[in-house]
């Protein structure tokens, strides 16, 4: 082999090796980048899913709170009107005229109280205004009460109560009290007839 041809061969072999080295490097670099792009896409998708999941959870929480706030608003609106009914009833009870109708109411209240207390000796406690009114009609009241029970004795307490109307009954030995005042009866009605009152205010077809 001539020297020239030998030189040529050395240079060609070297060139081939260089090409192969660079080509392999290119392939490896491309593979690294492709792998990175693929992983990056997975990371992006995963992060997007996390963001979407977090936002959906936030949405559920916010909307759930909005519904609770809405229900609170409905409840407070109903409560406000219920409270207004109580106030208006209280206002009207405080202005009830002391007339024959009221006298009949008082007699009925006293009869109820006597039944509850199961005693023949009763003290009646009234507000200041009603003490004067009852004194005026005491004979009538006593005769009405005695129609049901002739052995009953009624006594007017010297003390007066801070009530709108009605009567508080007490056994003469002080062992039992029955509060049949407007105040107690109103509270009792508002507590025990809540559903009925609500139904009148807001019920279907009303």
């Amino acid at each position, binding site marked *: 082999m001539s020297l020239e041809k030998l030189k040529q061969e050395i240079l060609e072999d070297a060139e081939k090796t*260089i090409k192969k080295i660079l080509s392999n490097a290119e392939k490896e670099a491309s593979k690294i980048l492709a792998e990175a792009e693929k992983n990056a896409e997975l990371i992006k998708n995963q992060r*997007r899913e996390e963001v979407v999941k977090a936002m959906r959870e936030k949405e559920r929480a916010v909307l759930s709170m909005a519904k609770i706030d809405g229900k609170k608003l409905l409840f407070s609106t109903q409560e406000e*009107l219920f409270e207004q009914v109580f106030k208006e009833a209280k206002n009207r009870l405080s202005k009830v005229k002391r007339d024959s109708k009221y006298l009949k109411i008082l007699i009925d209240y006293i009869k109820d109280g006597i039944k509850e207390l199961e005693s023949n000796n009763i003290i009646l406690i009234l507000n200041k205004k009603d003490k004067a009114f009852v004194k005026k009609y005491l004979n009538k009241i006593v005769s009405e009460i005695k129609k049901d029970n002739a052995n009953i004795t009624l006594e007017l307490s010297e003390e007066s109560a801070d009530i709108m109307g009605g009567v508080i009954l007490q056994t003469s030995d002080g062992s039992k009290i029955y509060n049949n005042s407007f105040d107690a009866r109103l509270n009792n009605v508002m507590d025990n007839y809540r559903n009925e009152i609500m139904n009148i205010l807001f019920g279907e077809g009303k």
Partner: protein
Amino acid sequence: MVSEIYKLVEIEREAEERIKNAHLEAMRKVEEAKQRAEEIIKQAKNLSFDDLIVEYEDKIKKRREDILSRYKKMADEIRLKGQKNFEKAVDYVLKLVMGV
């Protein structure tokens, strides 16, 4: 003859040097690819989803307002109904209290 052999050795050295440089070039290319790959992953990790978040926030806000507005309307209707039946309710309470 000696000088020709000497030239041949020179050519061999030159070829080896070029191959060595090719290896260095190859290593540089791979190293660059690795750095670029790290950059791509880092960008993916730091990618902001602000637009998506803003879009969701707007949607949530609107739905919340819709719900509250619906309940507000219902509360107004309840109030009107209650006001309409107010007298009946007061009369009912007074009847029960006074027992007449």
